[in-house]
């Protein structure tokens, strides 16, 4: 399989009000192969969304990409001009933003909002063709095309999420990034959206990046998983390895904190403490202050652990996890 997206050592700083740089994302590395799905998991504030925004070069003004490469089809997006980037966004890589379903324009019909996306990116010139394409897109995500003439308030939450996904697919992207696509939706609607994403992935040969804090969803949908903590990669491997043979203490603790409907009554262990604040990052391993691994030692507090490939395709950033 061809590697579609190759992110290397990506680092992002946010400038605080007084100008001091806060290292929000530090040395994130991962690959996305064509047609596969990657789950990006971590708690709120761990930098998941920042990584995605950096890839699309959509960081807010205070954000700076300070290091790294984002190779899309072998070309570094960080070297692109803004005009070139505009070609990439939506047409090659598109993103369903968190809460986008609540950001639809309330006074315009769903169809006209999809048509706008098509015309802005000049995929379809003629209004009639654009409307036909919008209908096609709605059908693709399971909305009867005649409902395109309705307004967002006439849609349920699940339908609005589908409409937003349709919009993201307007220009036939090769990569779809979905940021918390099911948060705030009911379980059954969540399942419908997941099913839709899986179907789209297969039908359109999409590569998918799912950004979420829901480990269950990742286990259901993703081939590979990137676990982030405090702006760095903690562990990166296939889903099977992450869920059955996790090596980083953080991954292990995160899994123990997640309730499993297949094992009712099993103990849940929370992770004491809070994730680090960006203005107060620990000097060594960022998880060290909350880590209760019996093997931990003084080095953890001084030196950040490098991301090491301990087995083919299994990367861990912990001083105490060695190559097998």
């Amino acid at each position, binding site marked *: 399989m061809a590697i579609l997206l190759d992110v290397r050592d990506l680092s992002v700083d946010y400038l605080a009000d007084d100008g001091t740089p806060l290292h929000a994302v530090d040395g994130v590395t991962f690959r996305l192969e064509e047609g596969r799905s990657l789950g990006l998991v971590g708690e709120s504030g761990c930098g998941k969304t920042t990584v995605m925004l950096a890839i699309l070069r959509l960081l807010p003004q205070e954000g700076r990409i300070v290091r790294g490469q984002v190779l899309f089809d072998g070309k570094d997006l960080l070297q692109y001009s803004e005009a070139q980037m505009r070609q990439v966004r939506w047409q090659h890589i598109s993103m369903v933003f968190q809460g986008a379903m609540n950001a639809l324009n309330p006074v315009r019909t769903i169809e006209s909002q999809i048509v706008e996306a098509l015309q802005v990116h000049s995929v379809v010139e003629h209004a009639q063709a654009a409307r036909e394409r919008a209908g096609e897109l709605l059908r693709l995500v399971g909305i009867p095309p005649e409902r395109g003439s309705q307004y967002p308030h006439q849609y349920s939450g699940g339908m609005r999420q589908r409409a937003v996904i349709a919009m993201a697919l307007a220009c036939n992207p090769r990569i779809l990034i979905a940021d918390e696509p099911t948060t705030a939706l*009911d379980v059954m609607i969540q399942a419908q959206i997941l099913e839709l994403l899986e179907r789209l992935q297969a039908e359109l040969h999409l590569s998918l990046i799912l950004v979420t804090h829901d480990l269950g969803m990742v286990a259901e949908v993703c081939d590979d998983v990137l676990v982030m903590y405090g702006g760095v990669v903690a562990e990166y491997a296939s889903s099977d390895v992450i869920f059955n043979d996790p090596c980083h203490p953080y991954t292990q603790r995160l*899994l123990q904190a997640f309730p499993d*409907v*297949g094992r009712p*009554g099993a103990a849940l262990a929370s992770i004491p403490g809070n994730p680090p604040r960006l203005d107060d990052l620990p000097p060594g391993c960022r998880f060290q202050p909350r880590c209760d691994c019996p093997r931990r030692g003084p080095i953890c507090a001084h030196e950040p652990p490098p991301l090491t490939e301990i087995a083919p395709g299994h990367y861990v950033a912990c001083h105490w996890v060695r190559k097998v």
Partner: protein
Amino acid sequence: MEGSPVLQVHELYKYFPLSQGPWAALTRKRRRMVRAVDGVSFSVHRGEILALVGESGSGKTTVGMNVVGLQQPTRGYVLFDGYNVTEWARGHGPSLEAKDGPLAALSRRRRIMRLRQKAQMIFQDPYESLNPRQTVFDIVAEPLEIHRLARSREEKKERVREALETCGLVPADHFWDRFPAELSGGQRQRVVIAGALVLEPELLVADEPVSMLDVSIRAEILNLLHALRRERGITILYTTHDLATAGFFTDRMAVMYLGRIVELGPTAEVLARPQHPYTRALISVVPVPNPRRRRQRFILQGEIPNPTDIPPGCRFHPRCPCAVPECRETDPQLRPVAPDHEVACIFAGQL
């Protein structure tokens, strides 16, 4: 766990009238009703944790509101500790039990106050249920003042301290001068729980208390609720749409669909052997955190119908994968399929 039920909900109905236009009013069209809760009965034993599970629109939150007396039922009643809560709050009609009970001498207002003290509700969103201009101390102390439960400043301080520390905000003086904005999501939810606990309630109605929280904090709050039951024998009615968290710490589970309970039984039993097609579908779509255990999902298409327009017969039949023509006519009632396990489906026991 056995013993007398601390909470009995009997044939509870809660309808909300829809606002209607002037034309409908003039033509005296019958007012349309949102049938949020449409005949729900269950009981909870002292020290038990009951999960009320359902999607939005199932009526689970409305049941909780009626239990703590924040809403008055359209029909039916709620007995709390044997006293008819609904009559208390309404203040008319003969009370079922209160006449001879120790509370009979109290005024209506005092009786409502007693109920509020004994049955407390925790809301979903810890970001919106705290007053941003009050300190943690003021938030937690306010219920004490309203109920005039602290005789001195010292006592008030002590009780606030105890409530905060029970909720894991240790040491309390480290937190009580802060404002909600200075706290993390998990800490805020602890403050919300402390505000309920400070009255030493016997019943907590926890309405989706963790759905806004991150995974590790979620575990913290659930463990806290679990500990409250274990250490103080507090009875908990836990409403949620998340079967995985319900499976973790509840004893029994009631699954609601469109204002009715469709299945009720011991949590482990319901999760392992669901008998209602809706329960089965709901369980099958909960993401399991292990790719080796991916299961067949029974995804129901469409959404919960509008509760103004409840389908005739079995209210689940339009979405039910097992429906037969009879389901359009028969409105199935809960009936036992195993000890303590009841299901409202004509195929109960055969699924």
